[in-house]
């Protein structure tokens, strides 16, 4: 009952309703409805931004995963009521969780297949790892801030994602034992992409790196390792924005 730690009148009212036996189910339903609204938002935004990210929609598998994972269980109690808003949220220790649309876009760019092994640098709340666990065979995730790592591991276990391999530590050298990886996501701030990550990436694999500051993802860096081992990167603006007036 982590939802009990609420901080506003509004929340109290909802909780009072939830406390009544006949309304308990309705509350989970309420979150399901909110989640569906979030999915609709993501789809609408994706259509609008399609031209820029080079893809008209987010893959249906990603949408299904986001419709399933209870995002409200991956944010601090006082942020639960914002969990399904299309906005980034604080998760403590100066870290944030990306807004749902960005999560969808990044996951989509990773092109995760059911037989894939994927690595995440920067577990944060564990939400992204849960989404990946819905899509991939193996998920490994590393978090640099120890209390965050512990908390995320607990959440993942409680939410039934116990097979996600999570550890606290330095992500710079990747995770040799877990790899090689079909795709890697680096949500931790880094001044550069660690060379070893590229080495642990399979040929044909992808690395996605959000570039920006706390709360604000400016653009996404997509690193593709071609089958011949050569590297091509793409920089993707999440939004459709043409900087020149009339320059469509």
């Amino acid at each position: 009952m982590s939802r009990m730690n609420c901080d506003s009148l509004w929340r109290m009212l909802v909780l009072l309703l939830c406390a009544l036996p006949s309304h308990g189910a309705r509350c989970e339903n309420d979150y399901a409805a909110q989640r569906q609204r979030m999915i609709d938002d993501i789809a609408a935004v994706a259509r609008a931004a399609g031209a820029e990210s080079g893809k008209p929609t987010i893959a249906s598998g990603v949408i299904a995963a986001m419709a399933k994972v209870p995002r409200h269980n991956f944010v601090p109690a006082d942020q639960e009521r914002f969990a399904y808003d299309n906005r980034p949220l604080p998760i403590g220790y100066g870290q944030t969780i990306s807004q749902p649309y960005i999560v969808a876009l990044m996951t989509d760019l990773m092109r995760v297949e059911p037989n894939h092994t994927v690595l995440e640098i920067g577990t944060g709340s564990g939400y992204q790892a849960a989404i990946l666990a819905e899509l991939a065979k193996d998920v490994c995730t590393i978090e640099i801030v120890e209390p965050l790592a512990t908390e995320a591991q607990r959440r993942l276990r409680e939410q039934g994602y116990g097979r996600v391999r999570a550890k606290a530590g330095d992500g710079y050298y990747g995770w040799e034992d877990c790899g090689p990886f079909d795709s890697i996501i680096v949500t931790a701030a880094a001044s550069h992409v660690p060379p070893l990550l590229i080495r642990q990436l399979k040929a044909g694999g992808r690395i996605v790196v959000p570039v920006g500051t706390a709360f604000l993802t400016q653009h996404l860096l997509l690193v593709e390792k071609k089958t011949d081992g050569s590297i091509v990167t793409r920089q993707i603006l999440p939004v459709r924005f043409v900087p020149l007036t009339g320059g469509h």
Partner: protein
Amino acid sequence: LKPASPPLAAIAVLSAAVLAYEILLMRLLSIDLWHHFAYMIISGAMLGYGAAGTFVALLQRSLLPRFSAVFTGAAAAFGVTAVVAFLLAQRVEFNPLEMLWDWRQPLRLVAVYALLLIPFFCAGTCVCLSFARFAQEPDRIYSSDIVGAGTGCLAILGALYVTSPAGALQWIGALGLVAGALASGSLRVQARWLPMALLGGAAVLFVGLASQWVAMHPSPYKDLSQTLAVKGARVVAESSSPMGLVSVVESPLVPFRHAPGMSLNAIAEPPPQLGVFTDGDGPAALTRYDGRREPLAYLDALTSALPYHLLERPRVLILGAGAGADVLQAIYHGAREIDAVELNPQIVDLVEQRFAEYSGRPYGGHGVRVHIGEARRFVTANAERFDLIQVALLDAFGASSAGLYALSESYLYTVEALREYIDHLEPGGVLAITRWVNLPPRDVLKMFATAVTALEAQGSVHPAQQLALIRGWKTATLVVKNGALSAAQIVALKDFGVSRSFDVEYYPGIQASEANRYNVLERPEFHDAALALLGSEREAFVASYKFNIAPATDDRPYFFQFFKWRSLPELLALKEQGGLPLLEWGYPVLIATLIQAALVAIVLIVLPLLFGGAGPSSNTWSRARVTVYFAAIGFSFMFIEIAFIQKFVLLLAHPLYAVAVVLCAFLVFAGLGSRYSRRVAALSRTSRIGPVGRAVVAVGLIVVAYLVLLPSAFRALLPLADIARILLSVALIAPLAFAMGMPFPLGLASVAGGAGRLVAWAWGINACTSVVAAVLATLLAIHLGFNTVILLALLLYVLAAVAYREYR
């Protein structure tokens, strides 16, 4: 017992404390938050002064008979609340980064304002009440007030060298109590024990409260806070000065590996590093160097290494040496000689002394010279020429103003600055400037446009032959050659790009197919923009671009201002898609600050009118006339003061000292002018333009002369020693400020003669408009330049002179 004369000493001490507090808040809030928010909060808090004017105007009937008690109490309350209000304010969980999503944040911001407003309100009550109580002596009161403030401005600068910001906060609190004690003594407050009690309290504050009570609480989203959340990371050294709080962090378990934008092809890992944070922002890397070259190989995988592949063992000048990364890069590439300029002596001291063993003392190496000073002045005042001038990726801190204004003025990236740099290149020499890559492109394009304009201004016939631009995934480096790039250099440039997967976006003769190959953007925006900026359609391109990429100039030194109103609706509409990072924060925050200041100011000015606090008009001074006069001089004084601070930044060659010296000189000489104003009034009895007219004519003549003469004079004076330039600045400001100090006391004296109860209201109008003017000056400078701000101020002074009525 009725006091016979105003408590001048107490007023001076209190005003000193208030100005010191204002400057200190900027420091404190820059450490806790970020400086443009700090600026916003301080502007809000300063309205406490205006609120005091309203308060005194409304309640003067009950306050005036209790002058001694109210003054003493309010002064002491300033002392207490200056400390307490800040400590409480930083307990408010205000996170400006969530402002646009979370409705609680604006409420928390209001709570911060409300808290920080209290000390200003207390001090303002003292000063305003003094003017109302001793309405016949505004010249003496005003003089004490602003001479005190000028002194406070220098004093806080000194204080911040000897104590921490938290320590200085307590000293300011102590000063408030001292002002209360002085007042209770001179006003003969009945409670005899009071002065001693207040001095006792001051002594306690001066010695210092328990450190956990006055600890700083930086935002968890500051770079330093985030770094310290990593296991094992800890601050190993800290040094505080008015230039900033420098923290050196060691992170043994998860090392710093700072190599911004390092090529993805690179396999080299940076050697061990310490992180250097200024006001919690950063880090800059203090890299371990043991004299061996190989561990530095990673520095060749950055875009900023490009010029070393175009030149043979160059003589290098590095602008913005910081903790030494660019110097190590030059050493790695075998530079023949290295001169490095760094503004902040604390950082040089850390590299050369405190961590000498770790850093390997790169600044003391063979052929390396480090110069502490401002980069622009170093170049201008130096007769030597260099093969390579490398402008480091330090961002705003180095050459920007100490942060009194929302958007950082930067004199490093203006057209005039680039001309200076190019003038100091040997024939065939290269200027290299590295910037962050933002998407959609902004500052790299502005830099390119600035370089083209600078080359043209220099008389270059073919700027297109002299430029090259290379782009990595995180940084881009622009190269400007003093001469045409050679075929061999172009080959080297292409090789550099290919081997590191950096995109060559421009060089003379580039084919479109060569650009945008490795770090692929949907459109080759950098390449297209470079061609457009070199072509005949440049102006149309700059005009139709959705960010402001017009070059910055010394008159409008806002390189980092990319915001265009036209783009705002589109960017806000993109919020759901994650489009907000495209919004440049500084400018909207400035606008929000202006709007809130203007609204509150209007309310504060109108309130006394509604509730009879303004007092009746007289036949010489109607309420409308009072409003026009005191608003006009409020605006013009601030406009001129702020614009000249910026003008003198170039001569004093130090953002912080310029602010301190110019502000202090302005206030002190205006205070002397105020003392002299009574004599001017007497002398002007027979003159047609009256005393204010005379003062305004003097201001006008001096200002126009300065606008014409100062730019060339400053260039000639730049090589002089610091102290000579400071004295010259003071001498130049003195006559201007002297004349500017007169209109306020002349106006108040005349109002007091005809309509005494209007004095408090008039004072409040001036206080409110001064706050609005400070914000508006920056906004106007961004769009119109500082010269226009000055000319506007002159017009307002003329308006004031016309509005002025002598009391007969």
